[in-house]
């Protein structure tokens, strides 16, 4: 009984997977909210500030990219461009003392949680004046004073730590919740599943948020994980949601409800926010795994353009007001570059600083 022999295929190629010349998008965006900011409880000033923060993240990274290409600094550089509505909507939804922890795509998160353009740029340049004293670089922005616990470089590694921040909040009964952001690639790590199980079992006040930007490096979501991501929550009996991450107001609306609920009943939430990364995974990515059409399609939903247009449509600002904000930010970012260039590198002795909170010990150090 001869069977038809077929070559085993494990991960079919992404791009060529198109149907009748129509490309298959890596993520489907759920509809954005139709509510006005005022209905959502946001003032005009709030949305203006949202726009300002989003534009800051965008220009900060566009300039950082130029500086990287000019060889001003080395290391990895993962850009958040396209995903700024997620960080921005979230910080407005959270209390200022709620915890945030994320992966290495962290510049946007730092900028919305109190890291100045100067401190951020100086960190990229590896300068002593950087937010992490030049010890962390692009992947390890942090501002723990404002409850931003940092960016982490091991995919999935910071997820249990996010659970631990929530554990501490519950232990201390301090009314704070913790939010833990990671990419769709991290969904495949065991650390997530171990932490989700314990979070549900122990009723930890934590929101796990997948920023599904369509790709884990060059692997489209459908090629690296089964089913719908948010449905993973069902296996743990965890509350879950999935919404549009290309619109700051939508992120705000949903995250606010979720944060309030988690704070109220101390039960975890699993959230999939659908978004899109406009740039390569890092600076050395030729992006052969996706089509130009797909990128262009998502660029039509640019979150920064969207909120800019919203401000005009709702007569919150006029074109000239917006240009003024944009010019100010441009200056702020250029100033940050000057600051980073002029800042001193860490002193050689700094090599041995910040290892220990208690008595330092370095084996065989002369």
């Amino acid at each position, binding site marked *: 009984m001869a069977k038809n022999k077929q070559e085993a295929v494990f991960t079919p190629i992404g791009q060529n997977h198109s149907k009748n010349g129509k490309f298959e998008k890596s993520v489907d965006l759920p509809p954005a909210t139709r509510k006005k900011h005022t209905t959502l409880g946001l003032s005009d000033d709030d949305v203006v500030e949202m726009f300002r923060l989003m534009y800051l993240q965008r220009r900060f990274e566009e300039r950082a990219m130029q500086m990287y290409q000019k060889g001003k600094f080395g290391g990895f550089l993962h850009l958040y461009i396209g995903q700024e509505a997620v960080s921005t909507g979230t910080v407005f939804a959270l209390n200022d003392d709620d915890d945030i922890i994320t992966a290495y795509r962290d510049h946007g998160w730092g900028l919305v949680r109190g890291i100045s353009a100067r401190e951020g740029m100086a960190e990229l340049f590896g300068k002593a004046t950087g937010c*992490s004293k030049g010890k962390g670089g692009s992947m390890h922005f942090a501002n723990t004073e404002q409850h931003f616990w940092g960016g982490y470089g091991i995919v999935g*590694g910071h997820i249990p*730590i996010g659970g*631990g*921040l929530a554990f501490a909040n519950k232990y201390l009964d301090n009314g704070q919740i913790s939010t833990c952001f990671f990419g769709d690639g991290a969904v495949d790590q065991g650390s997530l599943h171990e932490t989700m*199980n314990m979070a549900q079992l122990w009723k930890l006040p934590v929101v796990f948020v997948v920023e599904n930007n369509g790709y884990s490096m060059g692997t489209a979501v459908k090629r690296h994980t089964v089913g719908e991501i948010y449905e993973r929550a069902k296996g743990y009996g965890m509350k879950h949601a999935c919404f549009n991450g290309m619109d700051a107001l939508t992120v705000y609306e949903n995250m606010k409800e979720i944060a309030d609920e988690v704070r109220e009943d101390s039960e975890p939430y699993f959230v999939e926010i659908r978004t899109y990364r406009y740039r390569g995974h890092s600076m050395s990515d030729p992006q052969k795994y996706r089509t130009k059409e797909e990128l262009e399609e998502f660029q039509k939903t640019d979150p920064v353009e969207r909120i800019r247009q919203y401000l005009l449509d709702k007569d919150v600002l006029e074109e000239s007001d917006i240009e003024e904000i944009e010019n100010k930010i441009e200056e702020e970012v250029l100033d940050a570059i000057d600051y980073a260039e002029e800042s001193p590198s860490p002193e050689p002795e700094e090599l041995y600083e910040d290892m220990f909170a208690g008595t330092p*010990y370095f084996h065989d150090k002369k």
Partner: protein
Amino acid sequence: MAVLQFREALRDAIDEEMARDEMVFIMGEEVAEYNGAYKVTEGLLDKYGFKRVIDTPISELGFSGIGVGAAMKGLRPIVEFMTFNFAVLAADQIINHASKVRYMLGGQASVPIVFRGPNASAGQLGATHSVAYDSMYAHFPGLSVIYPSEPDDAKGLLKSAIRSEDPVLFMESEQMYGLKGEVSEEDDYIIPIGKGKIKREGDDVTIIASGKMYHVVKQAAEQLAKDGVEAEVIDPRTIKPFDIEMVIESVKKTNRCVIVDEAHPFGGVAAEAGFLIQREAFDYLDAPVQRVTLPDVCAPFAKNLFDIWLPDAKQVIDAVNTVTYRN
């Protein structure tokens, strides 16, 4: 002095620190209702309740990371592993996170956490339950590694570990939990991390051993004394920081040294201490430093093979005979 079992000394240390500081809590597999896989935590659930004595699922990676996050927010977790052989699943949290978070965030957070549990072999448990991990973790900057051999050391050092502002790995042995020994009754008995102890004085040879191997060496030293060889036995107690000064001083007196290490030979404590001794005491050595370690092979099950595999007093005596040219 009170005579306590090793596990009782550990329990007293945990109990005293939990009573002293509300931020201290303990979590791990079977630590609460079951009273501890090796009964170290017996009675603690009754005393401190479910908030501070926490049974975890079998998720070493997950609960270690929850510990790290909790420590970053100011709690002082004691994370118990059923053995360090299983902590390998948590290596990402210990090595990539606990030891590095502070540095990579430029000092903006600290991780005062203790990871503890039995280390190394415990009889014929086969290849996956028999590995000594002290030197492996000692490799990484930022981690302290403690592997005490007697109840008194265990108590004083565990209290120090719990108070440490930085991550500590505290290693025990399944085979030593019942071991009895005198323990100081001093109020708030603390032994500083990083200080070795001369446990037997002698002029003829220095023998270094910690943890379970200390007891093998003790036996060997008694045997050697009958043959007129007086060994000086140093128990470093902490693998990192390693008390090299104490060792060098002793070697300068005895001019000979044997290091006994329960790990495999490549890159272990014996290799590191041996290197430092040749560099710091070259002119004092009357013989090349010798080491007794596990062979570079997995732990076997069969009794006869296991006995060949694990260092014993005879191997120690052989090594001493080599450095004293009595072979």
